[in-house]
């Protein structure tokens, strides 16, 4: 049974400048012990999904579809029950650990807070548990009474991981956990996350714009573009043999050392991601696509079978309906 099941999720921000459809119909499942990587450019709706899973958006933001976390229908929960599900059902490792901690409270207290808010233990037991968690993420127990500003960036991120694990959640959402860290620390934090995930058999939703990071930690990969998942499949396959032209452009942007094809400079992708309020018709990627066909601007794309367990929303994949059929 899957820990998290998302069906046709649509999230629309209501702003003064009009409605912004940030997520436009996304479905995925995460099973126990599995890691789903979610990648895409800035503004494609990755973090919006993370917020929607725990219903953290302001009440004015509309969320449609279905989110089932641990058997709870998140979108229909009453406020009290919702609070109970937050952190115990799914916890979030926020991007930018620097700001995700209260500067005037000790880190130990902030780990304890997660446990005592849910009345899972008394203050004293919670402190013992917090100390264990500190050890588990590779921090000395004596740092428990430090303030956030006394820690380095990598240490703060470790504390964030400890917090995320405090209530034994079924799902951990890692929202760009390694941005703003230097490459060495990034590697250490990733290694820690991966080993904890294996050790505890956690389900994990790993969000980043860094494909090379995702391929290291994920079992499956989902690539997002303009509020939609455009390709989904086993991590290796999606990264090394992408089916969607957008994924091809993304993975082509990472040069492989020693590979002749990457001599010179890595290939990139021209243009900018579309404005969520003015998304192109048909396949939203067609204005930037290298293999665009005349049918693309009017074609309603969905995830079609692309072979080897992969699915992609592109007219060129094997499972797509024939051009003649779509034109007719």
């Amino acid at each position, binding site marked *: 049974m899957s820990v998290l099941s998302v069906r046709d999720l649509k999230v629309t921000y209501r702003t003064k400048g009009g409605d912004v459809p940030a997520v436009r119909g996304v479905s995925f499942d995460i099973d126990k012990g599995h890691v789903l990587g979610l990648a895409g450019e800035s503004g494609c709706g990755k973090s919006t999904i993370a917020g929607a899973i725990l219903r953290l958006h302001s009440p004015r933001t509309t969320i449609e579809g279905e989110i089932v976390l641990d058997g709870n229908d998140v979108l229909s929960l009453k406020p009290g029950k919702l609070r109970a599900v*937050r952190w115990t059902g799914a916890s*979030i490792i*926020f991007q930018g650990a620097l700001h995700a901690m209260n*500067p*005037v*409270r000790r880190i130990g207290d902030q780990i304890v807070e997660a446990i005592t808010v849910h009345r899972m233990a008394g203050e004293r037991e919670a*402190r013992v548990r917090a100390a264990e968690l500190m050890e588990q993420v590779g921090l000395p127990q004596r740092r428990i009474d430090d303030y956030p500003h006394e820690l380095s960036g990598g240490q703060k991120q470790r504390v964030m991981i400890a*917090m995320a694990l405090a209530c034994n959640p079924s799902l951990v959402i890692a929202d760009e956990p390694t941005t703003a860290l230097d490459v060495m620390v990034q590697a250490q934090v990733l290694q820690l996350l991966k080993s904890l995930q294996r050790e505890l058999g956690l389900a994990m939703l790993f969000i980043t714009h860094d494909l090379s990071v995702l391929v290291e930690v994920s079992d499956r990969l989902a690539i997002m573009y303009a509020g939609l998942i455009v390709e989904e499949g086993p991590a290796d396959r999606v990264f090394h043999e992408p089916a969607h032209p957008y994924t091809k452009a993304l993975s082509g942007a990472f040069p492989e050392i020693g590979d002749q094809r990457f001599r010179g400079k890595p290939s990139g992708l021209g243009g900018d991601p579309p404005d969520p309020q003015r998304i192109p018709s048909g396949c939203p990627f067609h204005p930037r696509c290298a293999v665009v066909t005349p049918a693309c601007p009017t074609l309603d794309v969905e995830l079609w079978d692309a072979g080897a367990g992969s699915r992609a929303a592109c007219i060129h994949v094997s499972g797509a309906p024939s051009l003649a059929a779509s034109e007719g």
Partner: protein
Amino acid sequence: MIQTPRTSDVELGTEAPPPEAPRSPRAIRWARRRRALSGFWRTYRQSRMGMVGLVIMALFILVALAAPLLADKTGLNVSTPPGTPFESPSAQFPLGTDDFGRSVLDLVIYGSRISLLVGFAATAVTMLAGAGVGIVGGYYGGRIDTLMNAFTNWFLVIPWIALAIVLTSILGRSLFNIILVIGLTSWAGTARLVRADTLSVKERPYVERARALGASNWHLVTRHILPNVMPVIFANTVLTVALSILAETTLSLLGLGDPRNVSWGGIINDAFEAGALSAGYWWWLIPPGVCICLVTLAFTMCGYALDEVLNPRIRER
């Protein structure tokens, strides 16, 4: 076991290794509070301005507390004055006497009680009302905020002295009413400050993290918003004490003070009415004026020093 040796050192006052005996959470909390307090004092002591302010403030509070030992209360009664009217300073009356023959020094000593009491009590009213309205409005936003903001602005634009005069005449001239009136007319500024700070604090990622944690509104406000808004409230508190003492002086000077109690403003009012200015009874006017200046200055100095110490963002350890 979880605690660092540092805590135990403070608690035991020795360099001995910490005992492994389990301690109650309350003991841990108190040890930590003691440590935090001594750290606070260490930092505060480094501010010369703060220390000067604190010494002056302590001196006045001491005088107010020890008033019955320093002055004879029966001498304050107009029917039993110790001297003759308008005596200039002498060995018996270091600050001369007033129009009834009462010792001005004794009046000033007893006046410090009322002035300080009104200062502190009115500040408490100001802070509770201001912080409450500011945090609730800023945190909940939307319609509640609009309402609270309109209410705050209404109090801000009304000239406080006019409102205070009207209120005291309606409520009557008593000590309690003076405190209430000063509190009611001065909370709006605090509410604005607190609201602005709450607005910025509530958007910080750690508040979102705490919400994702499953924390309730009450928990968010008391554990995350309030501690971060506290430096603003606290520094403001000390400054408000100074303003409240000035406000009390103003009201008493206008003859709206409590006639049954002596306050510094009241002494100046009496002196004015008796024509002390034209008659040259300087000993009657200057001492209470100097006291008001000194106390106001002392609280202001402490307020600035506290802001430096209490704001963790500008504090270094």
